[in-house]
């Protein structure tokens, strides 16, 4: 939210005065104008009392005026800032601090390779400032900005502690890599999620950044803003700028919070009596013997509620300490953070240690150095899900309410699934740990060759070490056996370096303002891993590879590399702050492409017009400021596996090797992994953007509206190839074209004195359409494990990855109703599918679009109120127009175990099943064999409305009155707050949580039993020393 409230505690128009001498002589006066965050403001007009213009500040905020007399009044004015007057009292260098007006549209915004004032911007960039982040005590910044930025859709992919989320900027333009590029303090880093060895819970890759360290987050949405990042910018760019030390400001801040989380909702499952009743009914319907143990359902009563056994109220703690300080020569910021979060699901947790040191050094007038070094160490424990099976959460939905917490299944396999396990005992026995160390930082030097011309060089390093340990003891729990204890240790190591050299030139002459930058960068990533799996342990309390049976150890390992070389350039020109022009180009070469297509060019042009700067515009009218802007540009995507241009052969993999000879010798073999495509090239996304920025009602109201069209051409895709081709992996091709278009609006109103308020609403629409798939056939998304249902379908004219299947028209109430040529295997109580094309054959042509995972509208509402020392934040967020493929019903509806013999527990919704006596039109008859394919076919039965509205954050804070601390020098500020996240959610969705993120656009909105999102209650304190 760039229209920030005036920060509490900053005095307006503060002037720093240095050595006052009462001489009255006309002299030359130099100085520098900065904003309240220490950023230089250029273009500030300095005028004398009589209105005579004396000069403007340059790009560095520096001004020099002549003919000034001691005692003269100088006024400083600039759009969006409170005008400032000072009386000349000496001729030392002046430092003038200007504060922002309410609804300021002219803060400094970090852009690629530089900064810019918002009034000068022609691209589409949304900013989130630290003051906004502070209001949501979220464990990662991705969840803190969820719902705040129009055009950015963030969904948590798991409720696991530290869990990953998917971040999508302006829709999905590709079937391939679709995560944005993350740039921390100018250094592009990998943001991929971190896997816990042995677990399916992924950790957010960007949780390496402590939100407390972040000064601002900028989201580059359109091509004008992002094309300077060329080949990796097609999915948008997120710039993270960390807090740095400031001259003259020394502070120590401690932020601590504690809280707990639990499930915000728990759909009902059958209790023991209901389960046994329905199981008996199922066997009777199938003319099979019923289980004698379940003869008397009422004797079981409620039984065990397995959800209660495996979910819990989970505590969390967080402590952050930050120190900043500095003088003219050296400025530092140092921070340390610790967070400990237990998961709502038993035996899951996450701990994070972070540290950061930022240093800036002014060596001479012309030479600056700076750098930062940060680390994060993440430890975690996760659980594993295997496609409806054997995951703790899945098992809790499926396991028998008739059994007690420590009971195992060993009954007849005619009635019990032999492939399940007791979720409670299983969770206790599995140990999957993560130890992830990330060490990253950069150092730069900047030299001013002549006035306005600067050379900057920086080097960045990012080191990753990831150790995963997965342990499962030797165990026999009823049918479940693990005949040998298994220990798997995996070590990943990666190094990513970057060298960057830029030459920039800024010049302000008269009313012309010009800034140029050219540069060169080179980046290289290397990754290697080894993994050892060992079995059979002498003593299972000692779990190291060394104590395993020597003959039962197996090792694997490999590595990969990636290089990128780039040239970049950008020119910004503005005239009189009215007419703004910008053009940029980046030329990128990537190792992912073959010799003929290594390099790609990514240009952009944009223009803006500050209408309110025109003399005909009356800034005191209804509208106070108004700007229109437009941009066009191209962005690239090279997120595709390496070496797609050449056929690759695997050597010595299991699928390649064979056994020969009487001694059963292992013969190393080779096999083609993927055929090469020598024509492989960049995916290009071409984007148009039109925007309006305005303030109104005396600057208290503000509005930004944008419309964009984003076309992805030459989409990099592994098109499904004919099974007959026999390729192990599909070749990468450039096929297809996808259009995302939408309208984004942010409108707000803020003001007040004692009672301050800022209310804003943002909304964005999205229309996603596949315009072409090259020569290829429609793409079926991955098959959901254990089923034959494809998670999605992608074809021309419809949104990417939509849901496709039969339409259920109801349930056949009697055998007579059934047309046996249409549904030969149906009987009374089965789904009646719709004959869409009317040919009386149930075939592929009867499969239609049933829904889309993409919200057509996402919206958020942010309310900040403060009265005296109280502050309140409410953050609502919602989506609508999207659907969810609730494939979890495949295991939670039929009662019959989907993967083998016996029955399992089911959702309480199954109580509405069809019976000959009572009929019913929602849930089919309970049967042991589903010959009609009621559950095997993807149909409208599985598709549900995924819209929701959620109160994502509620925070109430109280800052102790300043007066209390007057007698102490130590304490500067003390704020206490309480916060609740996910307090309530409105949704029609019947599953655990409608917020389902997935990193694969062809498997989005598919709920196959996702670790549900928690509700979080927190209490925190923030102390400034």
């Amino acid at each position, binding site marked *: 939210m760039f229209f920030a409230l005036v920060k509490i505690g900053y005095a307006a128009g503060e002037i720093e005065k240095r050595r006052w001498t009462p001489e009255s002589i006309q002299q030359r006066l130099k100085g520098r104008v900065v904003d309240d965050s220490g950023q230089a403001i250029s273009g500030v007009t300095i005028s004398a009392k009589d209105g005579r213009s004396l000069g403007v500040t340059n790009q560095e905020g520096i001004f020099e005026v002549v003919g000034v007399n001691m005692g003269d009044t100088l006024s400083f004015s600039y759009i969006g800032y409170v005008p400032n007057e000072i009386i000349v009292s000496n001729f030392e260098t002046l430092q003038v601090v200007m504060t922002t007006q309410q609804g300021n549209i002219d803060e400094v915004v970090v852009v690629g390779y530089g900064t810019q004032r918002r009034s000068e911007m022609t691209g589409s960039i949304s900013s989130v400032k630290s003051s906004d982040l502070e209001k949501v005590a979220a464990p990662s910044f991705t969840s803190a900005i969820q719902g705040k930025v129009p055009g950015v859709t963030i969904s948590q992919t798991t409720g696991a502690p530290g869990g990953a989320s998917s971040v999508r900027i302006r829709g999905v333009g590709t079937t391939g890599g679709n995560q944005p590029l993350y740039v921390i303090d100018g250094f592009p880093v990998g943001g991929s999620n971190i896997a816990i060895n042995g677990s399916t819970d992924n950790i957010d890759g960007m949780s390496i950044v402590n939100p407390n360290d972040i000064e601002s987050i900028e989201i580059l949405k359109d091509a004008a803003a992002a094309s300077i990042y060329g080949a990796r910018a097609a999915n948008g760019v997120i710039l993270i700028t960390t807090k740095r030390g400031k001259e003259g400001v020394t502070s120590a801040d401690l932020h601590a919070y504690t809280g707990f989380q639990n499930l915000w909702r728990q759909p009902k499952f059958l209790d023991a009596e209901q389960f046994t009743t329905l199981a008996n009914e199922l066997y009777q319907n199938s003319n099979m013997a019923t289980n004698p143990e379940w003869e008397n359902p009422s004797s079981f009563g409620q039984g065990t509620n397995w959800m209660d056994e495996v979910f819990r109220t989970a505590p969390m703690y967080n402590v952050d300490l930050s120190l900043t300080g500095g003088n003219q020569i050296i400025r530092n910021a140092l921070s340390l953070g610790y967070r400990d979060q237990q998961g709502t699901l038993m035996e899951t947790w996450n701990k994070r240690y972070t540290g950061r040191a930022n240093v800036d050094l002014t060596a001479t007038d012309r030479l600056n150095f700076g750098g930062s070094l940060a680390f994060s160490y993440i430890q975690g424990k996760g659980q594993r899900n295997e496609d409806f099976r054997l995951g703790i959460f899945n098992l809790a939905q499926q396991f028998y309410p008739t059994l007690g917490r420590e009971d195992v299944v060993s009954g007849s396999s005619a009635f019990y699934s*032999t492939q399940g396990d007791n979720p409670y005992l299983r969770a206790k026995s599995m140990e999957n740990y993560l130890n992830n160390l990330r060490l990253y930082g950069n150092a730069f030097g900047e030299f001013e060759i002549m006035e306005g011309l600067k050379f900057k060089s920086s080097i960045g390093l990012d080191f990753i070490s990831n150790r995963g340990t997965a342990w499962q003891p030797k165990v026999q729990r009823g049918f479940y056996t693990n005949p040998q204890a298994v220990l798997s240790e995996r070590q990943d190591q990666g190094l990513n370096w970057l*060298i960057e050299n830029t030459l920039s030139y800024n010049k302000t002459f008269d009313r012309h303002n010009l800034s140029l930058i050219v540069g060169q960068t080179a980046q290289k990533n290397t990754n290697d891993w080894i993994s050892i799996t060992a079995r059979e342990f002498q003593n299972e309390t000692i779990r190291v590879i060394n104590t395993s049976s020597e003959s039962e150890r197996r090792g694997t390992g*490999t590595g990969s590399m990636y290089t990128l070389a780039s040239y970049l350039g950008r020119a910004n020109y503005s005239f009189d702050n009215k007419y703004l022009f910008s053009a940029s180009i980046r030329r990128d070469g990537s190792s992912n492409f073959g010799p003929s297509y290594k390099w790609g060019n990514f240009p952009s042009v944009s223009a803006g017009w500050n209408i309110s700067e025109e003399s005909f515009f009356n800034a005191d009218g209804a509208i106070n400021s108004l700007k229109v802007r437009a941009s066009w540009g191209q962005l690239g995507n090279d997120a595709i596996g390496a070496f797609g241009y050449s056929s690759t052969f695997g050597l010595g993999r299991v699928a390649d*090797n064979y056994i020969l000879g009487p001694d059963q010798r292992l013969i190393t*073999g080779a*096999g083609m992994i993927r055929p090469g495509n020598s024509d492989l090239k960049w995916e290009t996304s071409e984007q148009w953007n039109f925007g309006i920025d305005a303030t109104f009602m005396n600057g208290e109201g503000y509005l930004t509206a944008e419309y964009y069209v984003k076309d992805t051409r030459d989409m990099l895709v592994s098109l499904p190839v004919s*099974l007959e081709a026999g390729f192990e992996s599909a*070749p990468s091709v450039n096929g297809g074209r996808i259009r995302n278009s939408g309208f984004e609006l942010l409108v707000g109103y803020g003001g007040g004195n004692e009672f301050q308020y800022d209310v804003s609403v943002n909304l964005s629409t999205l229309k996603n359409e596949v315009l072409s798939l090259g020569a290829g056939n429609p793409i079926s998304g991955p098959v959901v494990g254990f089923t034959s249902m494809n998670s999605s379908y992608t074809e021309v004219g419809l949104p990417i990855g939509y849901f496709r299947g039969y339409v259920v028209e109801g349930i056949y109430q009697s055998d007579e109703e059934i047309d046996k040529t249409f549904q*030969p295997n149906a009987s009374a109580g089965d789904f009646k599918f719709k004959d869409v094309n009317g040919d009386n054959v149930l075939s592929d042509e009867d499969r239609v679009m049933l829904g889309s995972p993409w919200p057509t509208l996402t919206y958020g509402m942010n309310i900040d109120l403060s009265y005296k020392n109280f502050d309140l934040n409410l953050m609502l967020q919602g989506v609508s127009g999207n659907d969810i493929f609730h494939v979890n019903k495949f295991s939670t509806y039929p009662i019959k175990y989907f993967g083998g013999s016996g029955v399992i527990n089911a959702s309480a919704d199954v109580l509405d099943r069809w019976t000959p006596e009572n009929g019913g039109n929602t849930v089919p008859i309970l049967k042991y064999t589903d010959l009609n394919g009621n559950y095997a076919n993807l149909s409208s039965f599985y598709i549900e409305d995924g819209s929701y509205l959620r109160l994502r954050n509620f925070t109430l804070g109280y800052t102790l009155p300043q007066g209390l601390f007057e007698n102490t020098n130590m304490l500067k500020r003390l704020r206490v707050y309480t916060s609740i996240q996910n307090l309530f959610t409105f949704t029609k969705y019947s599953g655990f949580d409608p917020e389902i993120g997935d990193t694969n656009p062809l498997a989005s909105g598919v709920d196959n039993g996702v670790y549900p999102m928690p509700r979080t209650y927190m209490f925190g304190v923030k102390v400034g020393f």
Partner: protein
Amino acid sequence: MIMKYIHNTFLFFATLLCLACSDDFLSLSPKDTLIEDEFFLNISDAEAALTGVYATLQKEEAFSNVRDAADIEWAISGDMYEMDGSANRIELHSLTLPSTNTILRDVYSAAYQGISRANVVVAKVVEMEEGDEETKNQIIAQAKFIRALFYYRLVTYFGGVPLITEPLDANSDLQIPRATTEAVWQQIENDLNEAKDVLPATWTGNDVGRVTSGACKALLNKAYLWQEKFDDVIAISESLFEEEVYTLLPDYRSIFMEENENNAEILFSTQFREGVDAEGNNLVKRTAPRGAPAEFTGGAAWSNFVPQQHWVDAHETDGSGRIIDKRYWAAIIGPGEHHQDMSAFVMPDNVPAGWSHSGYIMTKYWQKPTLNNSGVNAPVIRFAEIVLNYAEALNERDRTEEAINQVNKIRDRAGLADLPLTLSKTETLDAIFKERRMEFIWEPTGGFSDLNRRGRFLDFIEAERPNFPSLNVNQKPWLQTQPILFPIPRDAWDRNKALEQNPHYTF
């Protein structure tokens, strides 16, 4: 001083700039895979690629005797009971056969993965400059056998399928229509005829387990038999007999034993090794009784398929009702019976339903406790089948007495009385099919496909499958074709719209 410093700084950064301007920086080689330019340079590359072709046999969907032998052949014919009732298996043995069936899809797709690798070897090894011709020809011949083996599978299950014999790449047209059944058979015959003349009758040392000329002749024999080219069956059988390499082992159980692998009865088997390195198979897990003590099973035991009572009842018995067929005693255990190799393991008198629904367990593959993957080889073609194929061809050419003599070789080994030489041609054919049924349980032959080949399937299940009435055969028009074909998998059609579906099925 400062100027020198600046000068040096610039020199340093100029060097860095050059790092990026070079294309060398952007031209990497993979660390873990070979790229095309670096492969197929010498014989050892060709051998490795051939090994990769063999490796495709090991999948459960290929020639590991699971998807084919158990799920398709013996569960559809109904002599084995599928214990799990998972949807994809029910679709097969209940004969609903939707085109979405995952087992059929996986079998189809696994066959083409093998064919694809074989095509690469056939095409690339010819082009190789290095290496002596004989070795190269032998490599190509082995690849051709495996290609023919997969096409045999496809043509017998699906009819005429897309016939691909050249390597494909990303730029190939992959909308490939189906070829005729005849064209596929022709390709199979061509490949095998070429291969049989190039390959040795036996391999020695570490090459044992590779394709021999005998294996080529045996598969050719099967191909001729399916096409009812009975004279060719007789000729190729006799050519195989003349090699005097293969014979019937006197002891039935010893054919399958892990310590007796690649014996004289095995014309071709998929090779496996026990252990955790995934070069083994799941045959022990899938046969050993679920829930039985781990000291005998090794741990994971699923008894996915068990012999049905009606199959057991089909064995010949003595006056007291005791089964006299040695094959039963060598490969099956029923209530109260001892395991053949682990005598301490006795089936309970009341076998728990989880162990076996029918009370019987097959022990051809479960020979000892197996912790992980088992190393027992999966027999694909064995000499007993050639003997019975030969008998069938002789009988069709009205050499019924000679045919009965061949059948009696199989019966002798099983400890059964000789059939009288006076049997009619029809009776002899019935006797041959009866022997196939008793001889090959849970092997890739003797079940559905054999019956289907001669149009005997529906009669057989009507007579033998107790649940025949509930199968509603009359409402399943796809069972009324001759031969019965499986549906072309919908996934295949999703990606290749040039495919046409077999009659009576939909996508």
